[in-house]
């Protein structure tokens, strides 16, 4: 087997089944993903979910991607003591064994910037979470209404 085939195979494994080769991310479970519909493509969108680490090793979430948006980042919304609401990239997020991180309204969110297509209520889109061990987890994110408050709408 030549190099190219090996690389292709590795990529295939990484994409389809984050199997035994990775240390940590194969034990990551993403629960209750959801996103709000967008109005057109000029406004950024937001997606939410709970990321659980069911393994014995800490995992670090290093990046996100989706065909829906050219740029994706995890942001944290916070409110200063003076009541000023701000938003900034949260950077890499490390999840200890047995712990979970909640992306929820008013806190952490996956921010979808430079949307390629509008986020339409009722549709879903694939979202890939990349981890520091090289593994990836892809989930289908249902798009709820703009006024949705949680995964149940």
């Amino acid at each position, binding site marked *: 087997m030549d190099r190219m085939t090996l690389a292709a195979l590795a990529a295939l494994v990484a994409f389809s089944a984050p199997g035994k080769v990775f240390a940590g991310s194969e034990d990551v479970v993403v629960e209750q993903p959801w996103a709000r519909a967008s109005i057109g493509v000029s406004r950024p969108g937001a997606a939410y979910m709970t990321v659980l680490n069911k393994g014995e090793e800490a995992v670090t979430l290093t990046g996100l991607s989706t065909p829906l948006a050219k740029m994706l980042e995890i942001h944290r919304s916070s*409110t200063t003591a003076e009541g000023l609401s701000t*938003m900034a990239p949260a950077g890499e997020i490390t999840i200890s064994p047995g712990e979970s991180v909640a992306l929820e309204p008013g806190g952490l969110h996956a921010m979808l910037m430079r949307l390629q297509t509008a986020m339409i209520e009722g549709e879903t889109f694939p979202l890939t979470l990349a981890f520091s061990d090289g593994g990836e987890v892809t989930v289908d994110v249902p798009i709820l209404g703009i*006024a949705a408050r949680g995964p149940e709408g």
Partner: protein
Amino acid sequence: MRRRAVLKFGAAGVGAFGLTLAVGWWRADGPGALAPVGERPLPLSEMGFRLTDHEGQLVEPSDLIGQPSLVFFGFTYCPDVCPTTLSDISGWLDALAEDADRLNVVFITVDPERDTVDAMAEYVGYFHPAIRGWTGPEDQVAQAVEDFRATYEKVPAEVGGYTMNHTASVFLFDASGDFASTIDYHEPREYAVPKIRRAIEETSEGAT
């Protein structure tokens, strides 16, 4: 009408740009001096701004006097906190049922550059029908923010464009237009709704 120049908006934007290039992102603190903690909004009768609602009508704060009012700031390009605030408030209004008709609910944009009357109309249309969207010229929005003793600043985003930092509290006024209290957008419905109900009930008592 008072039109104090609010320089912090422009200064924060320009100043932040250089810093953002270095730091790579938005910043929360800066020259946009915040109103001192605890400073209360003016009574609606003393505010001096004029805006346009999402149906194209000219509006001013004194229009709100006569019923209790909930007023908050935001912008429609806000992906997280603003839709959450609007849907939380929609939830409170649902809980108030028909009493929601005895309340003014106003969402004032801090981003009139992008939030035109049409943009506001489309956006508020996704939430409770009692919510009105107000926008207008830059100087009038700045005056509104100042009259509420709120704050906002424009912050460049790394992918181009910009976002806005802004006061997230919801301001509650009584029927005579005096400031009553603030409600945090994340405040659970079981705390928020009684606060609003009290303001509505005080109105009916005052009327008898």
